[in-house]
């Protein structure tokens, strides 16, 4: 069971309180009807699925109820950081320990 830091509660808590919500920073277009089929497929289905740092969303479901973002290494499952929804996407180079950049 993972340990997750909720950026709203400012506590590090067991995964049991959280639900995973998929890849982060996929913005729903302002005007979906203006999207091509390709663009809409991209929005709905295409995912990075990286082996390594992954920008993803979690919800503190049993806690404050907030959706927030995280960067987690999908190989070690360790969180590099978590941050509030709407906050800018952090630069990986500031997160990775030396040698892994």
């Amino acid at each position, binding site marked *: *069971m993972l340990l997750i830091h909720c950026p709203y509660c400012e506590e590090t808590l067991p995964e049991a309180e959280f639900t995973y919500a998929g890849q982060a920073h996929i913005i729903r277009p302002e005007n979906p009807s203006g999207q091509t089929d390709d663009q809409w*497929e991209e929005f709905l*289905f*295409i995912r990075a*699925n990286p082996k390594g740092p992954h920008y*993803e969303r979690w919800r503190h479901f049993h806690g404050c109820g907030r959706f927030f973002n995280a960067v*987690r290494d*999908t190989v070690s*499952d360790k969180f590099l950081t978590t941050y509030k929804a709407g906050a800018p996407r952090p630069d990986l180079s500031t997160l990775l320990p030396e040698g892994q950049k």
Partner: protein
Amino acid sequence: MTRFNAFSLLKNALTGHKNWTEQWPDSQPKKEYDVIIVGAGGHGLGAAYYLATQHGITNVAVIDKGWLGGGNTGRNTTIIRSNYLYDESARLYDHAVDLWEGLSQELNYNVMYSRRGVLMLAHNVHDVQSFKRHIHANRLNGVDNRWLTTEECKEYCPPLNISQNARYPVMGGALQERAGTARHDAVAWGYARGAAMRGVDIIQNCPVTAIRRNADGSVAGVETAKGFIGAKKVAVSAAGHTSVVMQTADVRLPLESYPLQALVSEPVKPIFPCVVMSNAVHAYISQSDKGELVIGSGTDQYTSYSQRGGLPLIEHTVAAITEVFPIFNRMRMLRKWGGIVDVTPDRSAILGKTPVEGLYVNCGWGTGGFKATPGAAHTFAWTIAKNEPHPINAPFTLERFKTGRLIDEAAAAAVAH
């Protein structure tokens, strides 16, 4: 290579087994191949085998980052069935079962396909409606699957608890008698031996770092830990790692990789005659020929390549098993392990050509990969050889996610109301 049979076994037994030869050589890469298959699991090795036997293409290499059969092939719960709802799925999986039934003889390698029957339990009215829908569709598709009453379920699988006071009472089940299990390692080894016999190179411990493309965009070959290897065609069959490999060819897929866990109990004398699946409680169980109860769990909620699942999921799975089979509560778990499954939005595979000329992909099997092995490999080989879809794999295109023409087995199992 020695042919396997009772006689050769006896002969070797008398000579201290000194004369068995290796089942496949540990090949080093050539400069170029007609076809390179990335991923030496059952699907990749099988595709190589059928390229050689069905299409006469033997200048083939199967390349793996680790040991052959070390991925999901060797990590799954070996359930084989074909009673899927949609015509497309039913055809593909039933084609696989047809091949499963003759595979030991075909490969001269006993993969122990065990036609012991797969029973899917219905625990609520919605399950009943959904399973009957499957059964009728299967019947009209010529696919074996029939309804059992609660009592018939108990008769077919005596350890089952059919008390109607159970939290999840058994309201009946769908039985595919033709379905069953097989020895997973033997499938990889048998295909490897069969392919190697026909000249296919199996290159292990050689990670593919990138797919290289020509100026015109078509496939040129693969970059590997052992250098560049040229190929006219590259076929990726890398399960959980497919996204990573395809990314290097600028092909982005509707895939996510999740950790999936499974476990076995200590071995006991035969007590469990068939395979039972209970989707409502998320439990899958059979008993191996060695005597272990083989139990499948669900995926963790988050994507991961760690091959390491959490404890809560295992706790739930075991609780689910003892809910349906209370007599196993004092049995002991011997070991549990994890795999990585690549999942598509409609829970059906992607099997065929890609936007890149000469690049083919076989992925997105989720938890259904093992049962499809011979069928997927056989039709994939066709597509690689002829550069066109096989009638059976034609619907499993990448385009469907654009048009919305999904093969949504997950949705068909539908949401409770």
